[in-house]
């Protein structure tokens, strides 16, 4: 290597805007992903606040039906594609190279492109909402995130923006996934064998593979939708010989594994947090990795349990029912693995651990309602009610979002070099957890009583349920201002974090992230470490 090139590798970070726009550094790109996700969290959260304000009373208050459904679509797309996936990708960017002893991601320039596509996609999503409100914009995007035809073929130009946003998001996700998988396969330090990998790395390996397999299907599906809208094809139009149910299959072939794309990184975070604060190695690490493989494989072949009511044959629905119920085996195994890690451990309950325990409890609850929904005759009753809304919010808020919060609190000292305010962290945990349960627990009852989802108005018998739910939602939304404040406070200063701020970190794992200073230098592991 030439001297000039060698010196270029050791200069500090570039200054000014160029540091961020042209960044190829995994830590800087990770930071940008995390900031982007935080901004989008407030955007998606604001949509939810409007929805809950509208639902506080029956009748129409502040929104019209189309705008209500547009905000509902926007909320889901933003939370899935703008918050959880970028936040998990941000954590992967920050932590995977440091855990496996790599100097950076395998393809740093591709990494830059993967991130910088996101703001444009977010702009498209915002435009998809604005377009429906403009004169000549046609009907707003009122389909929900599933974008089912024929409604999605009939909506106005906002749908084109939404489809374009999904294309860009898909490209970004696929490129990020390719980069992460390549990094894990090719960039591990000598001695970092597959079964020494921290669970977070395994979780992202499988998430990356899932993304590579499912995102192209969504991209293809929405492209066909675009053709139906503008180029005279009839893939999903029964009048032209097409079939709208085909879109449902394409969408859920992506959409169900997507649930595991959202969940797996958080399971990976649990695999780091629980052993640390139990001061015990992860219980049954290898079977846990195998169960993640099993979950990934099963998750790919059960998509049509979202479509029990479309008139599939009994044989087909029975297959999807059994497949779906089987998923409780690997998920149950994972949860028991975490519980047995805690068993007789020397446990302490710092904020990341509080989130971990809450996740195990509340995600198990979502598992129980999930099994209920998997059973065909029962699902025919629950379909399109608030019971489903309650179920997937119990799966995704603890299962994905709280896992990411646990990760933020766990790694914030490493990222910033400062300890966060533990007292404020615990206040945030209790505030957000109680508010979350107030919001969504009652929705099980309104759903079982028959309240339909995705409708702006409701019958007067559901008033109490909805008032409680809205009050909880406002408290839940408000708690995130505290979350923002904790992060800002930690970034700006505070108690200096040690290189290994948690005394139980690295128990039973070969991960190298805690061997670096806090915050880590701009370039880390320029010489590959050797793991014994």
């Amino acid at each position: 290597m030439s001297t000039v090139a060698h010196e270029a590798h050791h200069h500090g970070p570039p200054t000014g805007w160029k540091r961020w726009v042209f960044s190829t550094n995994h830590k800087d790109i990770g930071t940008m992903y995390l900031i982007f996700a935080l901004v989008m969290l407030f955007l998606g959260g604001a949509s939810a606040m409007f929805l809950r304000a509208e639902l506080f009373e029956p009748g129409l208050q502040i929104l019209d039906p189309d705008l209500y459904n547009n905000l509902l679509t926007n909320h889901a797309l933003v939370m899935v594609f703008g918050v959880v996936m970028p936040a998990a990708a941000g954590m992967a960017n920050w932590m995977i190279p440091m855990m496996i002893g790599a100097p950076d991601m395998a393809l740093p320039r591709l990494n830059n492109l993967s991130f910088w596509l996101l703001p444009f996609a977010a702009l498209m999503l915002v435009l998809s909402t604005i377009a429906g409100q403009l004169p000549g914009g046609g009907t707003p995007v009122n389909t929900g995130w599933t974008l089912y035809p024929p409604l999605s073929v009939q909506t106005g130009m906002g749908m084109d923006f939404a489809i374009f946003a999904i294309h860009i998001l898909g490209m970004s996700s696929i490129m990020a996934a390719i980069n992460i998988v390549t990094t894990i396969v090719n960039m591990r330090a000598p001695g970092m064998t597959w079964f020494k990998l921290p669970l977070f790395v395994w979780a992202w390996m499988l998430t990356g593979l899932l993304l590579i397999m499912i995102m192209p299907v969504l991209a293809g599906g929405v492209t066909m939708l675009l053709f139906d809208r503008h180029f005279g094809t009839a893939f999903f139009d029964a009048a032209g010989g097409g079939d709208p149910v085909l879109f449902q299959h394409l969408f859920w072939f992506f959409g169900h594994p997507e649930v595991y794309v959202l969940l797996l990184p958080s399971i990976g975070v649990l695999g780091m947090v629980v052993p640390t604060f139990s001061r015990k190695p992860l219980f049954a690490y290898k079977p846990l990795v195998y169960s993640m493989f099993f979950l990934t494989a099963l998750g790919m072949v059960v998509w049509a349990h979202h479509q029990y009511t479309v008139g599939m044959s009994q044989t087909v629905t029975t297959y999807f029912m059994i497949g779906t119920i089987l998923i409780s085996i690997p998920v149950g195994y994972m949860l028991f693995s975490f519980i047995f890690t805690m068993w007789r451990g020397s446990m302490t309950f710092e904020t990341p651990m509080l989130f971990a325990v809450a996740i195990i409890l509340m995600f198990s609850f979502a598992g129980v309602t999930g099994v209920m929904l998997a059973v065909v005759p029962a699902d025919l009753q629950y379909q399109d009610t608030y019971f489903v809304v309650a179920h997937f919010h119990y799966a995704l808020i603890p299962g994905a979002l709280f896992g990411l919060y646990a990760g933020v609190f766990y790694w914030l000292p490493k990222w910033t070099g400062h300890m966060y305010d533990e007292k404020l962290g615990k206040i945030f945990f209790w505030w957000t957890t109680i508010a979350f349960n107030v919001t969504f627990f009652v929705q099980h009852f309104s759903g079982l009583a028959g309240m339909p989802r995705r409708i702006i108005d409701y019958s007067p018998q559901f008033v109490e349920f909805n008032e409680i739910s809205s009050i909880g939602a406002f408290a839940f939304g408000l708690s995130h201002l505290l979350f923002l404040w904790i992060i800002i406070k930690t970034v700006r200063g505070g108690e200096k974090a040690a290189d290994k701020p948690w005394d139980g970190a690295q128990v039973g794992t070969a991960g190298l992230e805690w061997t670096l200073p806090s915050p880590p230098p701009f370039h880390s592991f320029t010489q590959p470490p050797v793991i014994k």
Partner: protein
Amino acid sequence: MSEMTPEQKKANVRLALVLGAIALLIACWPVYMLRHAVTG
């Protein structure tokens, strides 16, 4: 910027291309259907 050897860079690009090709192949499934829709 990382301290990757040329061999490592080549290996990374090779694997990324394979994974990208798999993604493209999967995306071709709807395109295949599109061809049939156009040609009947």
